[in-house]
């Protein structure tokens, strides 16, 4: 543990409020702040006082200039540039016994938007990814319905379609950091979350078609992989196995659900449930059952393996929390982050991502002094419900130490908590839903490190 004296200046004064709602005002102000800084510098210009190198060697002609490149369709399904070979999903080998019941992480440190490219969507399997033939795959809907029905893939594609951009987040995102700092990489602290455009059939449309009994308070979805993963999903009036009602917000989540067959405009990837998956936006991603084969409408929860042993939260008062379904608001700075070093003094743009299972992101505030002072960041359009929102804020690095962090407030007014606040109520053993404010430390050397702040 060390006590740190921090540089408090994001651009000139951290306390200077910035109205992010008015983008033009924001830009004018940023320039003005930069100019103020420059005025005090000896050799300053409008852009600041960092002395630039000058190139005097004549430029070389690049090796691609005098050759012919590849023809069209030489790569029938396009791949990223070979120079991007390190932008891949990764796993943590010691986390699970094998890679079949395991998880991989999205490299958000290398992504620039809100959409996760399909090959980089995080994976979580309980019995491995399977190849399901769309020609023979069927979806059964039954239980408390007027008409038990079965649908082919063709049937589903004929139906009215629904498209929306939503994140999916494993409740274990960040879990390795509960007890203390562990992973010096943004990929591993926040990579169990991905965000895609999904297309499919709305669950509520299908419910109307098969005629769901209004007395049905739960449904469950089941996959056709080796684990035949199944999760109970509450609807209005849902009670747990002891007769206690579930939180009202959890009982509303099914209204946004869909049976998805497309991800970012193309068919789902096998790792993400091809040919169809359940998609329950805003809830822990294991409920979005992959390789979906069956939905049954019932009037009580199953209390499956996932619901009584796995995605549960042992608490310090000696109770075990169940059915903690909603992903609460979370955010993180993905530039700068521990996966990369600072490249010299001067201008940077702090960028990050924020999301909430309860709706839209309302504000993101950024601190560069360990949470003492905050400045509102600009939200980048689109700002959508249960979807990743990008934020940004200009930053001048003068070579000092900084503790940088972001804090999201969602449209319900919920403010992202600190780790200490979470630990106070949930102790050290609750594993899941760790959505606390993430601090990165910028060292004088330019190194960026994952840290926790014990008195914040």
């Amino acid at each position, binding site marked *: 543990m060390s006590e740190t004296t921090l540089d408090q200046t994001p651009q000139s004064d951290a306390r200077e409020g910035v109205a992010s709602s008015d983008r033009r005002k924001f830009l004018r102000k940023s320039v003005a702040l930069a100019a103020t800084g420059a005025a005090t510098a000896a050799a300053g210009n409008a852009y600041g006082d960092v002395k630039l190198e000058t190139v005097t060697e004549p430029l070389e002609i690049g090796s691609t200039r005098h050759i012919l490149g590849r023809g069209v369709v030489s790569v029938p399904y396009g791949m990223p540039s070979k120079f991007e070979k390190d932008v891949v999903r990764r796993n943590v080998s010691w986390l699970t016994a094998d890679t079949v*019941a395991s998880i991989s992480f999205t490299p958000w440190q290398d992504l620039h938007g809100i959409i996760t490219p399909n090959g980089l969507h995080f994976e979580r399997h309980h019995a491995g990814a399977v190849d399901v033939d769309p020609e023979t795959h069927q979806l059964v809907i039954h239980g408390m319905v007027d008409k038990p029905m079965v649908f082919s893939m063709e049937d589903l594609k004929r139906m009215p379609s629904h498209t929306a951009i939503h994140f999916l987040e494993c409740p274990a995102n960040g879990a390795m950091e509960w007890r203390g700092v562990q992973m010096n990489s943004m990929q591993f602290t926040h990579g169990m979350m991905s965000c895609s455009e999904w297309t499919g059939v709305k669950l509520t449309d299908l419910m109307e078609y098969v005629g769901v009994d209004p007395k049905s308070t739960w449904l469950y979805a089941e996959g056709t992989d080796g684990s*035949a993963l199944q999760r109970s999903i509450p609807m209005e009036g849902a009670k747990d196995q*002891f007769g206690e009602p579930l939180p009202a917000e959890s009982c509303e989540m099914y209204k946004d659900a869909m049976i998805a067959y497309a991800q970012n405009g193309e068919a789902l990837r096998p790792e993400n449930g091809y040919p169809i998956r359940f998609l329950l936006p805003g809830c822990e991603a294991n409920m979005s059952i992959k390789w979906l084969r069956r939905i049954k409408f019932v009037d009580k929860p*199953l209390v499956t393996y996932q619901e009584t042993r796995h995605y549960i939260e042992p608490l310090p008062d000696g109770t075990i929390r169940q059915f903690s379904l909603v992903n609460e608001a979370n955010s993180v700075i993905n530039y700068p982050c521990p996966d990369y070093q600072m490249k010299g003094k001067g201008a940077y743009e702090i960028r990050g991502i924020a999301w909430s299972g309860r709706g839209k992101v309302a504000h993101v505030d950024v601190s560069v002094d360990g949470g003492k002072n905050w400045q509102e960041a600009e939200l980048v359009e689109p700002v959508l419900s249960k979807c990743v929102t990008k934020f940004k804020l200009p930053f001048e690095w003068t070579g000092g130490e900084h503790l940088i962090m972001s804090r999201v407030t969602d449209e319900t007014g919920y403010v992202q908590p600190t780790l200490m606040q979470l630990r106070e109520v949930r102790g050290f*053993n609750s594993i899941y839903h760790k959505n606390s404010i993430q601090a990165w430390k910028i060292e004088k050397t330019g190194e960026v490190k994952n840290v926790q702040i014990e008195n914040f």
Partner: protein
Amino acid sequence: MSKLKTSKFGLGLAAGAMALGLSTAGIAAEHASGFNGIGKNITEKAIEPWDISVFYDGTNLPKGSGSVQAGQEPYDAQCAMCHGAFGEGANGYPKMMGDPMPQFIKSLKQGLDGVGNRAVNNAWGHAPTLFDMIKRHMPFYAPGTMGVDESYAVTCYVLNLGMIVDSDFVCSDETLADVDMPARDYYVTDTRPDVNNQRCMSDCYDEAPKVVGAAVTGVSQ
């Protein structure tokens, strides 16, 4: 070059020809449900082979039974290599037996590590869904291949390892729901939000930040 036999010219002709025969009747149908004629009805009987989910209270348990004794042999042959002869875990695979309930709860209260300890004897609230999980998902290398009676027997053996049932117990669709699982009464349903942070903008605290940072693991490849 193209495997498609159509030329631009051919396409144009085809489209023109089709236009002649088109009717606009379907387009503006006023009460279009969007679902007319889609899918098939199916009987619950036809769904039966898929309708395998067992509820916590034993609803939908298949008819059958298996004793603790009958479970030993299949357990040793098909489970022990990953879960250990006594459920203690093997080769990095999950343990099925963790700290007994009183010790588990004590660890939670004292902030000791309980995470890796979650298991049949301290986290599973209901025996019927333990049967469901074993029948559908295990043995891991060949999921869902055990018969009903064998699954009851192995479930029974596991429950006995956890000292949850006696060694002469017989698990069946009639007895499983009444098995007292040690963890059952410790469960409470979600009460979040359980923290209430404020959107403080300046001078949020006084002392210097106490920074802990011992991260060692970087990007792996």
